[in-house]
């Protein structure tokens, strides 16, 4: 049973490799979408990608690092406002502004982390929310950015991205697609890295992880700042589409956190695939029911509640439970050489922990 020749350790199964192949094909098809999809569909897909990014980022934070934040709208809003400030007052080209915003988001998240990492569990959640409220009220005091009234992005700023409307729409679509791919790729690579492994160890057992010499604070800090930077970038893209920003819209806990939590939980928290499924379900619901007004929101609340109560690992958790399939291989499976007993369960360290 021992000895190097009798088994090999691998991450992927055949199904996973096929899945990745299919994923690559889908990605290619999505990248070429501006060539064959209409404006409305592009716009909707763009919005879907941005929500997918927010959901994946929140999932990284809560599902992997155990940092349940209800204040991610702070970063979305800061991203949006920075975009407006840089392009309107700084005269910066929007695409360059995005790079600056990404860096700025990381920088802003660090002092916030230093403050709120002193809090645990529910205190942490409430603390993040208060920080976001402080941002909302703070930006409401900035008269130059419209104060509480809000401010519109001049059409000429939008037009500086591309001169033709089709070009703008394609650019805006690719930006959204790009950031979604970037977020998912970063999350995947990160979780496969040393720090990512440490993160999973922390989630599974903080005490044990500490005894293994993992610096918990530092690991969480890195995740929080990374997620902060990316969320800020996503926020800038969101308001590049909305064209108008006001404190209540920018720092809306419902739009940028509650719905995102719904998405992640419905899809399956703690998996990379969950947010994708959740985003699809969320938009299916929205596109079919949103005209019903209050009824739509009631249905959304009920669906999220039911999933949490009866399928706490979400839809993807249920799919994985029945099929064992995973799209993004994170776990190791031990495959024994022929004649060996097939026993992957004991050594599998899959994403579910």
């Amino acid at each position, binding site marked *: 049973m021992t000895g190097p020749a009798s088994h090999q350790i691998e991450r992927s199964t055949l199904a996973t490799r096929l899945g990745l192949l299919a994923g690559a094909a889908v990605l290619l098809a999505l990248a070429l979408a501006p060539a*064959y*999809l*209409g*404006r*409305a*569909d592009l*716009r*909707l897909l763009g*919005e879907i990608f941005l929500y997918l990014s927010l959901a994946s980022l929140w999932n990284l934070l809560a599902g992997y690092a155990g940092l349940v934040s209800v204040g991610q709208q702070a970063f979305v809003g800061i991203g949006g406002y920075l975009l407006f400030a840089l392009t309107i007052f700084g005269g910066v080209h929007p695409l360059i502004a995005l790079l600056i915003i990404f860096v700025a988001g990381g920088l802003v998240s660090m002092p916030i982390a230093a403050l709120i990492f002193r809090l645990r569990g529910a205190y942490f959640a409430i603390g993040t929310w208060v920080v976001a409220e402080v941002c909302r*009220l703070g930006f*409401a*005091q900035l008269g130059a950015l*419209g*104060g*509480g*009234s*809000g*401010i*519109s*992005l*001049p*059409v000429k700023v*939008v037009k500086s991205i591309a001169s033709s*409307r089709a070009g703008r729409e394609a650019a805006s679509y690719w930006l959204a697609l790009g950031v979604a791919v970037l977020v998912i790729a970063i999350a995947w690579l990160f979780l496969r890295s040393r720090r990512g492994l440490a993160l999973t160890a922390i989630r599974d057992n903080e005490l044990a992880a500490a005894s293994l010499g993992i610096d918990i604070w530092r690991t969480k800090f890195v995740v929080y700042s990374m997620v902060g930077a990316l969320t800020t970038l996503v926020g800038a893209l969101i308001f590049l*589409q*909305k*064209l*108008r920003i*006001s404190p*209540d*819209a920018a720092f*809306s806990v*419902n*739009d940028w956190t509650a719905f995102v939590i719904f998405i992640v939980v419905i899809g399956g928290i703690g998996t990379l695939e969950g947010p994708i499924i959740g985003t699809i379900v969320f938009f299916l619901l929205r596109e079919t029911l*949103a*005209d019903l*007004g*209050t009824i739509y*929101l009631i249905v959304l609340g009920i669906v999220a509640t039911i999933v949490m109560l009866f399928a706490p690992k979400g839809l993807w958790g249920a799919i994985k439970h029945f099929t064992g399939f995973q799209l993004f291989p994170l776990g190791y499976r031990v495959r024994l050489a022929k004649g060996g007993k097939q026993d992957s369960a004991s050594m599998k360290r899959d994403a579910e922990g």
Partner: protein
Amino acid sequence: MTHRSNRRQFMAATGAVLASPAIMGFSRAYAKNPTLKLGYVSPATGPLAGFAEADSYIVDGIKKVFRGGLMNNGKSWDVEIVVRDSQSNPNRAAEVASQLILEDEVDILLGAATPDTTNPVADQAELNEVPCITTDCPWQPYFFGRGGNPAEGFQHTFHFFWGLEDVIANFLSLWNHDGVAKNVGGLFPNDADGNAWGDAELGFPKPLAGAGFSLTDPGRYQPLTDDFSSYITAFKNAGAEIVTGVMIPPDFGTFWSQSGQQGFKPKIVTIGKALLFPSTVAGLGDRGVGLSSEIWWSPNHPFSSSLTGTSARALADGYTSATGRPWTQPLGFRHALFEVVADVVGRAADMEDPAAIVAAIEGTSMKTIVGTVDWSKGPVKNVSKTPLVAGQWQKSGGALDLVITSNDHAPEIPVGGELALLS
């Protein structure tokens, strides 16, 4: 040449028709009559829902009127109205506006009720080059709030309502009352309306000073504040006898009961927005009687509909008998919005061309149930003003009624009584 035909040709050519949800709109080319698609965004749910409470009554009525189609250049156009809820959320307003433009491919975008709806809707229309008409938001927060430049204006977006200068003028004539010191306390929140009303250049401060009133304005408070003691103290110290502002109902409720508790007794209280709806004022009980407000529209307005000939009184009565609810001011403006659309369709040179529709909107000059709408006479480009009066909530025979007490700036609207002081 429109984006729509562009896309259609392209899709037909590539055979990607089936892949697109827009297939529903595609059938139009084959229909007997062409269809005009109107998209309408309003806050049906959420904190602003009061502004949209009459919407479904109006839209249902308008659909009946439009059933026979609208004539354009001798051709009858079917009209389809797509209503979307902004959920009182500017994010959502922008989203549904863009959906209406891109997905439903509406020909004209309409929007109403407060800057939180009109501005994101108009912004989306301007960027996507779709004709857009909005109402029910003073024009300054609409125009300057969107970064408008009076010299240039906007290309595709139009608005009709009154402006701050009208509300100021009306309030001033309301306040020119014997036995009331010309000493005003201002309550302006840090939101689009409050910042516009309190703006040093465009808002209340300058005209008030010009008319010999002194204004105590401690600053912009955050909406949904739980304590107005600092304001009350400042007003008391300044000896204010008049209070004004533009508030949401919960904030005014807090301020008004704290005023009572802390012994602040102004003689006139004239507040925008919070006192529009009868239900809000009724909720204040006896403390609601005698409060005053701007009046954009009432059943006593001597106007009638260009579409149906219905008088203001008949429109309000129809609403009350159909829903059992008292009339509200947005009622007239919702109706007028569709009056303008019908008028524009009648005059547009080419309904397939957004530029022609825009030209027709620019050329509008008509009498509606809320007064004259004429974009050539606006204070700035893209804005047309409707008449404004002011009045007071008075009790007559046990029922609260909003009585017009000042018509200095729109004499065609008759006054119904005199302003009574609160104390």
